[in-house]
């Protein structure tokens, strides 16, 4: 179960994530004779066998390189073709922490979707936990079922079901999955267009001895409104809705440009101009240290640009033409952070609530 335990050396049959670039992470299953083709060269599976997870691998003809990474739910999420909307790590990690999903927790999830969150749940609940996940859409169900099997997710049971109409009860629960005669979920996650239709069905499948936590994941505010009402009607308490805002920052370097450099350059331009026009002076100018500004209004910077390399440590005042590599050691830099150009400003609203079993004492 590669999502449950690390191994060190790559063997045939292993799932490996080929990290090509930040935006391109390809899951591959190692098979002798096959190869991975990328825009920057290809990589033989045969060569991967025996390498360590985490190793950098050079391209077949020495062109380019990739890193061979071990599966994890977070890499899986990053690698996914966006078949359907994904629950991103910023949301999933908060949901799991807030609802106290730990080793051994029994989780109900609907719908399965891309199964990205399912992987995350399965990892965290471990061998002792149980994940009941439901998907209505058949192609998605089949795809997820195949993946969960390939990934050896033995703690997870996927069901093809419209939970909004047909509820969550399962007729023949495999023995290892039964508790208190049924599903007995302790944590519920609903990523459905109309969670309020599914909420009344939950009573039959949630734990009758422990507090049960729920999170409903809805993009629109009106869905939240209906969900809150349904939760109230069904006796859920401590209802709270939140949004999670996630940002990713990158470290960059910004060139330090002092005003002293600018002044120096302006003086330089001026003195070279004054030399050039020495013999065509006409204006009446007093002697002394005052300089002649005469031709400044008709000059251009072209002459100066050729000498920019000489300025050395300082700043590159002529943006055009001369390109300086970020962090070039000939210049002074300051460390700065930059957020992604386009950020996910909204994923969904998260409505949390709890249900307490009726007192037996």
């Amino acid at each position, binding site marked *: 179960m590669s999502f449950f335990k690390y191994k060190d050396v790559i063997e045939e049959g292993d799932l490996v994530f080929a990290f090509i670039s930040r935006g391109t992470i390809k899951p591959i299953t190692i098979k002798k004779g096959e190869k991975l083709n990328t825009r920057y060269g290809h990589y033989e599976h045969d060569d991967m066998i025996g390498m360590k997870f985490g190793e950098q691998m050079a391209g077949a003809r020495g062109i380019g390189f990739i890193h061979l990474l071990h599966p994890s739910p977070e890499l899986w999420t990053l690698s996914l073709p966006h078949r359907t909307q994904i629950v991103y790590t910023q949301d999933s990690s908060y949901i799991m922490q807030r609802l106290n999903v730990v080793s051994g927790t029994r989780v109900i999830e609907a719908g399965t979707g891309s199964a990205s969150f399912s992987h995350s749940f399965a990892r965290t609940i471990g061998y002792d936990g149980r994940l009941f996940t439901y998907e209505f859409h058949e192609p998605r169900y089949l795809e997820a079922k195949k993946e969960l099997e390939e990934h050896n997710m033995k703690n997870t049971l996927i069901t093809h079901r419209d939970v909004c109409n047909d509820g969550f009860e399962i007729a023949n629960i495999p023995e290892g999955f039964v508790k208190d005669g049924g599903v007995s979920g302790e944590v519920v996650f609903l990523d459905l267009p109309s969670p309020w239709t599914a909420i009344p069905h939950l009573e039959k499948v949630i734990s009758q001895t422990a507090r049960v936590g729920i999170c409903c994941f809805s993009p629109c505010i009106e869905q939240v409104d209906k969900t809150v009402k349904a939760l109230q009607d069904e006796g859920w308490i401590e209802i709270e809705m939140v949004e999670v805002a996630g940002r990713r920052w990158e470290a960059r370097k910004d060139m330090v440009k002092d005003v002293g450099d600018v*002044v120096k350059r302006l003086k330089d331009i001026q003195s070279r101009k004054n030399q050039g026009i020495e013999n065509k002076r006409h204006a009446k100018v007093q002697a002394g240290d005052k300089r002649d500004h005469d031709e400044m209004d008709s000059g251009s910077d072209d002459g100066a640009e050729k000498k920019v390399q000489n300025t050395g440590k300082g700043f590159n005042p002529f943006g055009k033409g001369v390109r300086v590599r970020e962090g070039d050691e000939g210049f002074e830099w300051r460390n700065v952070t930059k957020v992604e150009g386009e950020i*996910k400003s*909204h994923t969904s609203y998260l409505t949390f609530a709890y249900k307490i079993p009726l007192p037996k004492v």
Partner: protein
Amino acid sequence: PKSLTTISPNQHALIRLPSEGMKIVLLKPNGVISLGKFGSFEVNGILGYPFGQSFEILDDHKVKPTKSITQLHDDAPASDDGDEEIEKSELTKMFSNSAESNQNIINIGSKVQKLTSDDIDELKKSGASSNIGQTIIEKMIAGHGGFDKKTIFSQQKYLKRKQQKFLRRFTVEYLGASQLLQYYVEKDIQRILDMSEESLGLIMTYSNVRPGGKYLLIDETGGVILYAMMERMKGEGTIVLIHDNEHANIITLRNSDYPEEDINRMVKTINWLQFVEPENEKIDWDEATPAEIEQMKPSKQAQYERRSKRAQEINEVINMTQEGNFDALISVSTLNMTSFLPYVLPTIGGSRPVVIYSQFKELLLETQHFLMKDKRVLAPSIFESRVRAYQTIPGRMHPLMTMRGFGGYVLWGTRVMPKESGVTAIGRG
């Protein structure tokens, strides 16, 4: 003066396209403006309408006024326009065939999109009529195998996207500073140092810009900030602009439609050398006597006049900075702030705002530490303002899923005179 309200000849304007693209145009009477794939139109056809008006391109470069292009469905119920009604009933009809939930949404990608781009090109060529956009959309829907499996909502979105892509509509807007900024956000965000409209608003408000003020400005955006200030000041007051190169880059003012004389009256430029070493850089100009001028050849005379004027201008702006007492410092630059503040701070009047913009919070952090030690700026703080837009379709309200990450940071403080005179000795004091 230019009109802020009416689409007027020989004025610049911003054209918004259904694709959310933008174009800055000069409205020459009798001219024809091309919007690329959206078609061309005669300028005369739009003159006299209020700014903000949308148009649809008809045959022969004619236009007719139409409703907004950007909110096809939000405002549909209020419309009596024929075309809008057709779209609406079209939508209604199709919606009745739609799966009422997301459950049957199939994987919509290039595979189910049966209309190729060649098909579309051909359709476009086949008829230049005003209905072409609608026609293409209908064909695309027909060619879209999974359309009726989509929910009403996604149909709506799909249709809207397609309409925005092919409908030959555009909106003519007044080219204010916000519009100019938005234009650069799309075209060349580096030019405006990542600045968002909300940051521009913060800068204008914190620096207390208003008609009649006298401001010191460092503007590396090619004049977008300068333009924003001039718009607010409406011809009254002065802006001294410090620049890096021999000549100030105020290229964006070309689109401002201000007469040259107004610009010359309001905007005084000075380079950093002149600002930092004013005494050296003043021009010691000996006026020629009327008799001397008389004796010059006409070409020499003109040259003399030009040089005399130039010398006066330079000396005037240098004197202004030496007098100081500016009503605000506004800096939008990539220069190391702590290197120029010692020169600039003494010229700012007591109790006037100091406003410094940067793309990077880290640089303002250094600046704030510098100012806290310096004591000539009271209570400097770094402000971040971010606007999040929502989709407002009733029943489907939520923030837009993505937004631009950048926007910049603004440091604001107030120039004060601390009691210990030693503190102000830094720089030119």
